[in-house]
């Protein structure tokens, strides 16, 4: 009888202890939610995928991956090769440099305030979320040419990466690589430009900047004697990026005639009404992201204003809002363009310059973590 009790007690202890051991082993890591996360009220609602909450550990891991050339097949380029912080995460080139010494088809895109605005990514909207997007450049043979299995085993070979993955998510896996990169990119928030400070009541715009702001925010109406640059028809008032709802964040802004019109969004939706539609880009930090447009064809902001003012090329899918917006009353159809004065064009450019956020461009949290280690 006494023996039996003794055996039962030992069995129970072993079961409980063993169970606890396995539970602890299998328990997900307990990462720290990003503390004091806040975003300007005027940016509006945002959502973070439930299976990838913003945590300090994921951010630190994502930042390291973003800057690590190990992500490319020949370990010689990282995301930051084409997305440079000083340039608001663009690369200063008309079209990004491909591995085959030939240019890619598109210009690198600024990475900022990606939690808001259009939820599809790339100029033609082919990526449906940041987690999905993040693995594409890695595997693209012309961008980073890295096979994912190879990358996972390379990362598994590093004690530091194993530790960082364990703290953030668990295993080293391609899903977790994507999640970490997405977290880093979601945290790239620019909200301290002069325009933001103006919106918070902390700064005053100059007379010229204020005129530019008004023109940016108005669709012209000659009948109501209202002058405008109609930028807000596509670039939202606070975010300055494309709209979030449906495919509202894509448009044809009149760069090419029908014969040369690239597929753009049509390549993704198959709808001919979307031919030549491209993602409306954010204008935040626009003064440092030259050259402009999906193929970098416009060198300066002056060129951009000349385009909208009298360089618009008509095609079948050109936005009716661009076709219609004109500051001079004239017989319909006789002219396409804004017909602003030189002063007004300069004012809009002055306003665009208020979107530069020095705090963001030099924020240590977004900089290359390897530099601090050396």
């Amino acid at each position, binding site marked *: 009888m006494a023996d039996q009790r003794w055996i039962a007690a030992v069995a129970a202890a072993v079961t409980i202890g063993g169970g606890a051991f396995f539970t602890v082993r299998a328990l997900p890591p307990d990462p720290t939610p990003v503390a004091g996360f806040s975003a300007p009220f*005027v*940016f509006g609602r945002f959502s973070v995928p439930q299976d990838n909450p913003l945590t300090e550990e994921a951010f630190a891991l994502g930042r390291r991956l973003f800057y690590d050339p190990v992500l490319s097949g020949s370990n010689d380029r990282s995301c930051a090769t084409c997305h440079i912080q000083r340039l608001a995460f663009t690369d200063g080139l008309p079209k990004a440099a491909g591995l085959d010494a030939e240019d890619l088809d598109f210009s690198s895109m600024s990475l900022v305030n990606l939690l808001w605005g259009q939820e599809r990514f790339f100029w033609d909207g082919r990526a449906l979320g940041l987690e999905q997007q993040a693995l594409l450049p890695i595997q693209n043979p012309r961008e980073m040419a890295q096979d994912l299995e190879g990358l996972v085993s390379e990362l598994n070979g590093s004690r530091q990466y194993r530790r960082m993955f364990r703290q953030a998510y668990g295993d080293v896996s391609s899903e977790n690589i994507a999640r970490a990169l997405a977290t880093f990119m979601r945290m790239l928030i620019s909200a301290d430009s002069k325009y933001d400070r103006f919106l918070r009541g902390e700064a005053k715009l100059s007379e010229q900047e204020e005129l530019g702001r008004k023109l940016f*925010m108005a669709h012209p109406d000659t009948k109501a004697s209202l002058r405008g640059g109609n930028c807000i028809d596509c670039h939202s008032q606070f975010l300055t990026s494309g709209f979030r*709802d449906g495919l*509202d964040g894509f448009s044809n802004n009149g760069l090419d005639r029908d014969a040369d019109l690239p597929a753009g969004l049509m390549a993704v939706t198959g709808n001919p009404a979307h031919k030549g539609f491209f993602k409306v880009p954010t204008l935040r930090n626009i003064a440092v992201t030259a050259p402009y447009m999906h193929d970098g064809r416009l060198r300066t902001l002056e060129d951009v204003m000349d385009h909208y003012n009298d360089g618009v090329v008509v095609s079948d899918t050109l936005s009716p*809002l661009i076709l219609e917006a004109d500051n001079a009353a004239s017989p319909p159809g006789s002219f396409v363009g804004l017909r602003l004065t030189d002063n007004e064009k300069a004012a809009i450019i002055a306003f665009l310059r208020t979107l530069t956020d020095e705090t963001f461009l030099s924020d240590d949290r977004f900089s290359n973590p390897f530099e601090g280690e050396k």
Partner: protein
Amino acid sequence: MPAVKPQFTNILLVVLLALTAWHAFWKPDPPNNQLRLVFTAEANGKDLVFDQFLYENPSGPGQFRVQNFRFYISNIQLSGEDGTYFEPDSYHLVRFGSQSNKSSIELNNVLLKSYSSLSFSVGIDEPANSSIEPRGDLDPNSQMAWNWEVGYKFVVFEGSLKMGESIQPLVYHVGFSENRRDLLFTRPIEEDLIGTSEVSFKVDVMKLFDSASVLNLAQLQSVKFDRQDARVLAENYSRMFSIEEN
């Protein structure tokens, strides 16, 4: 009396405990009926087709195509025998596109058993229109926002008019609090609201140009900030909706 086995007492206790807990947490659900408002965009009695020059200028030359058509519906109310239900935060964007000429609004928590009248506004009330707070489908960073000093567009129509070889833009953006229109629909009989029910509305886009006033689109290719023109279109869009009886 034979002693009750201890195991039995234990089971009894557990059952009693479970019953008490169930009693404490279980509450009868309030009537939680759903009503779906389905809007179908039509023109000339048929489903609206986007992106093709299929429609005649009502009072002038040329044919037009529709490239964008959407509006805000707000402050939905139902009244019936057991009272009136106001949907909270009732701001809905109704939009159509080449993929679908239907758009629906779900009222998920209607606290009525039946209703005999339904009302909503086309457009937005003054307090919400002059605020940048996101409520319902109101979003100051969306296509429907003019800018925070002006407020929201209530009804948006964009397209083009083809006259011979020439293609002209059509842009009708109508807003301003004065152009909100309140519509009331009464049902011939009290309609049940048990479970999930549906009510259908036809939205006849031609009525935007051809109802209270008949417009020549070649002469009025855009309406934005001119108050007089905006009012003309508001009178027309208040006639665009009809409830489908079945």
